[in-house]
């Protein structure tokens, strides 16, 4: 760069906590100066910039050695410690004036009083289920007055995700733009091998590993009764690996390796520093735009792939008119009165727009709350299981019956209306 530019400054970490001249130069130019591409509401100002200072980070995980190839806030000595805490320590130490508060928890362990304090929520989650939950949480904070959305109740959600050399970043303005559930079909379904293949007709090394994981382990209980297979325990993986080799040998299947075994058991997705850096940067750019109103944010979905050259595709994901999460439209269920409750359950899990995981269905009968079926508590599952083979008529349900469905994919229950067809 040109001689005579402001000197760049690096803090040597010697404890001097004062701000320094020129610190915000690279950013100030965007905030102090008007420009042709800025947001229509943007007004340049010369107020002192303070950067992003108040950040809360939520993460339920602890650091694993396999994180170190890309998660750069962590060092070998941090293995085993909670990610949220180590990240917070590192940033607070390195960036003057920044105050990161860690929460070593699941996102679902925090409620609306926690989330509503934020201006922006940024996600780098590792599952669609978690994304849907966060999406649902921010939707639940929206305030409608006479059917009109109060814009001050909107908390923008910036979501990024990667897999190998592919990634995406999106901006969601809950209640205004497409939400996670509006575009559920964009997420490819998880591939699970059919049970008959695993049990009696393996062809690939992966089938052999799944056989050991799903059938042999529960049968042989190699590490004791009730000891579940832990993908992070090398002894467990070693056992699965050996048994998978045996299984493969039986069918003349080649290709079972330790690496493959661990990949199948843990459902490992390959990951590198570079793709994550690109998507994180794109998300951070959007946070900057939204926080400063300096530019129009991404509208609203960016796809990135650098397997062959570098490819990006930017488009506006559309809201789904009857989205079960954000449309506020009553969700219809159409069934014959002679249909069994099992069919309703199957619909809730298999329908591409719903994709529920383990829905719990309750309703009001004779003025009382009745659980029709609930999977997540063993005793209730056992008690309500017979209902699955009963018809909707037998269960006392009528045309227009409201069913309340709770599921891990959403923090709020979803209301469905049962329409009997003939």
């Amino acid at each position: 760069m040109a001689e005579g530019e402001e000197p760049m400054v690096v803090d040597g970490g010697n404890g001097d906590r004062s701000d320094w001249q020129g610190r915000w130069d690279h950013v100030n130019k965007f905030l102090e100066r008007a420009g042709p591409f800025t947001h229509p509401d943007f007004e340049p100002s010369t107020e002192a910039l303070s950067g992003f200072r108040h950040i809360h980070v939520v993460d339920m995980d602890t650091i694993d050695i396999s994180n170190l190839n890309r998660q750069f806030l962590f060092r070998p000595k941090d293995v085993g410690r909670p990610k949220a805490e180590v990240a917070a320590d590192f940033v607070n130490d390195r960036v003057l004036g920044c105050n990161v508060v860690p929460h070593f928890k699941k996102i679902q362990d925090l409620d609306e009083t926690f989330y509503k304090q934020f201006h922006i929520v940024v996600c780098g989650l590792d599952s669609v289920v978690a994304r849907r939950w966060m999406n649902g949480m921010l939707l639940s904070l929206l305030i409608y007055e006479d059917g009109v959305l109060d814009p001050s109740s909107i908390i923008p959600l910036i979501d990024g995700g990667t897999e190998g050399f592919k990634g995406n970043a999106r901006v969601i303005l809950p209640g205004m733009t497409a939400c996670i559930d509006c575009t559920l079909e964009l997420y490819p379904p998880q591939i699970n091998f059919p049970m008959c293949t695993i049990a009696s007709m393996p062809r690939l090394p992966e089938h052999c590993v799944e056989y050991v994981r799903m059938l042999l382990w529960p049968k042989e209980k190699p590490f004791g009764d009730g000891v579940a297979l832990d993908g992070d325990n090398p002894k467990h993986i070693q056992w699965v690996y050996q048994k998978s080799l045996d299984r493969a040998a039986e069918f003349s299947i080649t290709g079972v390796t330790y690496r493959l075994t661990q990949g199948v058991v843990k459902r490992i997705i390959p990951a590198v520093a570079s793709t994550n850096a690109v998507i994180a940067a794109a998300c951070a750019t959007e946070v900057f735009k939204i926080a400063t109103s300096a530019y129009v944010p991404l509208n609203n979905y960016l796809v990135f792939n650098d397997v062959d050259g570098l490819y990006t595709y930017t488009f506006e994901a559309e809201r789904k008119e009857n989205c079960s999460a954000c449309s506020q439209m009553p969700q219809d269920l159409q069934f014959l009165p002679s249909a069994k409750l099992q069919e309703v359950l199957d619909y809730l899990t298999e329908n591409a727009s719903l994709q529920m995981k383990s829905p719990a269905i309750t309703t009001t009968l004779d003025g009382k709350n009745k659980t029709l079926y609930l999977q997540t508590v063993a005793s209730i599952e056992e008690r309500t299981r017979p209902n699955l083979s009963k018809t909707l008529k037998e269960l006392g349900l009528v045309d227009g019956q409201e069913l309340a469905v709770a599921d891990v994919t959403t923090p709020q229950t979803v209301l469905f209306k049962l329409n009997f067809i003939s």
Partner: protein
Amino acid sequence: MTDHKTSKEQKYDRQLRLWGDHGQEALENAHVCLINATATGTEILKNLVLPGIGAFTIVDGHKVHWPANHCLVFNRAQAATELLQELNSDVSGNFVEESPDKLLDNDPEFFHRFSLVIGVQLPESTCLRLGSVLWDAGVTFLVCRTYGLIGYMRLIVKEHTVIESHPDNALEDLRLDQPFTELKHHIESYDLDSMAKKDHSHTPWIIVVAKYLEKWYSEHNSQLPKNYKEKEAFRQLIREGILTNENGKPEDEENFEEAIKNVNTALNPTKVPSATEDIFNAEQCENITSQSPSFWVMAQGVRDFVRNEGNGKLPVRGTIPDMIADSDKFIKLQNVYRDKAMKDAAVVSKHVEALLQSVGKPPESISEQKIKLFCKNAAFLRVVHCRSLAEEYSMDTFNKDEITSCMDSTDSEMVLYLMLHSVDRFYQQHSRYPGVYNYQVEEDINNLKLCVNSLLQEYSLNVNVKDDYIHEFCRYGAAEPHTVAAFLGGSAAQEAIKIITHQFVPFNNTFLYNAMSQTSATFQL
């Protein structure tokens, strides 16, 4: 059989699944040079240090001032090296406290030792000088720059070969249109009409399609189904083969459904893809010498196979997709393809050995393993040529057509390219970039416009650069915002890894990123 993986294998597990142990080895043997440890430069290096690059050397003569009260001054190269080193103890970090221009003056051969040189935020003159030295020395050069909300990358390499391009959606190599002898025999061993239901329902769809193709041939003069109508009729023929129960209702035969679904792609004529054909016809493939890289030696070996034993076809790839079938039938079928692939690779090996001997090299200088890998990827080979900067800039060879046609749309990322060249002109004239200080912005807009116009005039480019962009580039004041630097950091690092590992395909040759619109484009200039 490892009980406990080494800690390196554990650390790099997630990336080893992408580029394999051999890719990692290439990475660990590489020595990369970064010029200028700016935000962009350090972001790039961070993404190379984390995955375990062998070594890096930072060339940077800039000084860093300690905050406010202290008078301590130290060099940026050293500070960056120390902080980056922290990220991965496997990596060896070095620095040279010198400007690249001085090095080019005193010791231009300094750069010859690197696998790759990455130049960040370089003034145009330095870029062109360095570009020329590296081009002559055959060292790959990656230019990166963050300018306001714009990111730019330019790759310069005479020839970059890729065996493992890992295409996302590759078509299978099933040879159903021209089954090789062993496949024919294997297909003949099946008699669908006499099979018990269990076997019938667990016959691989490849066999099903092959059998019904024979039926089709007998009724259609041995011609493959060609158009949509014929393919529909063929699918119907297969559908009629589904077993029925006592009531005449069709049984559930998933393998037949798979066969029907795959008719579209399974009957594609087997041929050498055009990219591979181009490689066979390249001068480097035709003229093998003792200096020829192994890629070209193997290419001629495969080419000779194609023209002789292969009868116009590449060596069989040897893989088949998973499909509904019992284990025995599937494994047997898979082995038919695998064995043929091995046979073909062995023939290619003979050609390669003969070729090596003919240029006085020992036949073992290219390993069996490498030849097998080459054969397996024969349909996916890629060669990338990225023109020199001299060619890009020269009045005689600059890509006028590409620039002009892109600028038909005035908001094409091409305008960003023209603006970057314009600010370089500004720098040449004023020894600074436009709009660095607030008071300069207004006046510099006009000066920058003059630079834009002189650029367009000099290159006879009849295009329209909107004033908005000129204003915006003044507004940027040559700022290097971190989020844009980080986007480029990830992008550039991955291109560097592609160059070093020779896996996946690098871009060719100019990449532009617009953080305002979150869009990008690649141009070949």
